[in-house]
């Protein structure tokens, strides 16, 4: 049995991901990117590495963590490759492989998704305090004045809002998790 390549995994885990195979290395993506200067590799270069089978180098690149979800590359790509979605897929795979580069982005996503699963809604004050105090105590101080101004302008709530049918939402989230686990472990692997 041949080993599944990272390219195959990424394609399989992204809607319309198969279009990636049509990448012609034109570089429109990197040229469109507002944050390309901060990336280890432009998306074009990252895809070249992906085609070359450089699994570790791709997953430990900072490229996907610098993506700002502006969809410029996706919109401009002449081969209609869903580049933004591929960046999301690579983030998930990098976290799964334990080699993700941007700890702050991961921390923010964890705090945010926790809040959403707990309340059904985002809770900006809770996210800001928990994320900043735990990960950026200095920035928390710098942003404290800003937080006070937001509060003063009626733009910050100290209490979360909960949706009414949290049970329904939790059932959906749990089922989604079960489906994904079963797909990843077709043999019924147990922990």
């Amino acid at each position: 049995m041949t080993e599944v390549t990272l390219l195959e995994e990424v394609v399989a885990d992204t809607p319309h991901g198969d279009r990636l195979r049509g990448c012609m290395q034109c570089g429109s993506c990197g040229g469109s990117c507002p944050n390309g200067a901060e990336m280890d590799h432009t998306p074009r270069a990252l895809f070249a590495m992906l085609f070359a089978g450089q699994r570790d180098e791709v997953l430990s690149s900072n490229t996907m963590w610098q993506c700002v979800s502006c969809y410029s590359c996706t919109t401009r790509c002449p081969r209609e490759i869903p580049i933004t979605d591929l960046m999301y897929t690579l983030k998930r795979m990098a976290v799964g492989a334990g080699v993700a580069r941007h700890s702050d982005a991961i921390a923010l996503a964890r705090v945010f998704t926790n809040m959403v699963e707990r309340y059904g809604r985002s809770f900006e004050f809770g996210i800001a305090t928990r994320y900043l105090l735990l990960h950026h105590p200095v920035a928390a101080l710098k942003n404290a004045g800003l937080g006070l101004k937001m509060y003063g302008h009626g733009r910050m709530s100290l209490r979360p809002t909960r949706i009414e049918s949290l049970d329904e939402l939790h059932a959906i989230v749990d089922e989604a998790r079960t489906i994904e686990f079963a797909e990843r472990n077709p043999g019924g692997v147990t922990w």
Partner: protein
Amino acid sequence: MVRYAFYPGCSLDVSAVAYDESVKAVCAKLGVDLVPIADWNCCGATEYWGHDALIAQALIARNLARIDPELEQVTAPCAACYLNLAKVDRMMREVPAAAERVNRALAAGGLHYEPGRVRVRHLIDVLYEDVGRERLTEASTGSLDGLRVAPYYGCQVVRPFCDNDDSEQPVRMDEVLTWLGAEVVEYPVKSQCCGGHMSQISENEAFELIRRLLDCAHRSGAEVIACMCPMCQLNLDAYQGRVNHHFGTGYHLPVLFFTQVVGVALGIEHDVLGIGREIVPAREALRAHGATVVAAAEGGRDVP
């Protein structure tokens, strides 16, 4: 009159409450009937997609599934919410296997969404197409009086699911504001990115993206920036002071939601539109064009 399912999203509850207030006031004035989705949940923003794909899709689809079956269209003012609703609906239409997975998850909560059942639209399209030029022009009180506005669309309203405006140089907000008496200035960076969540995770990178947008608006002679995304408004308005500090600049550009500018044109009181909630105050620019006179005449509580 068409009724629209309304998805406000979390930001409109709190940090972008001025967007919520102005959307509701403007729509009420124009006879646009918004029906909030019952017990809607967070769309997951951009964060969920990089965290867990199927949960991201299912959370968004739960909102689509909860839309009143009598309604055929849903509108969202928040750029990220609009994008997410449009993205999942389109994904479910184009990739049946993905739709099947999402509906398996929804079924655990007793819900189902038939791909394509509702048409997802950003509010700017409802104003541009459905209300239209004639009715907007008629409803204008002339109180914008040539206010110079930089139209800032940001990313996610015009990319990649917008098929009725240009994704690089969109014009729909320009036109709506022009019909209402604003002087829309040339703003070539109108669809460039503000950095989104970068202000939370990599400040210096975000500050540079924000600086470019402020600088272009300043040089174009704009008195205010009109935007259509809570994240854009937060980055350009709330972080403007810190950007000035970081670069030693002195930008002073009020950033309003486009619906607030529309509301001023319609003669709605400033307080009702949430004007005054912005960190960089807009009242001075509006007053310079006599907009407060109209509001005061109608009983507005304008703060001097």
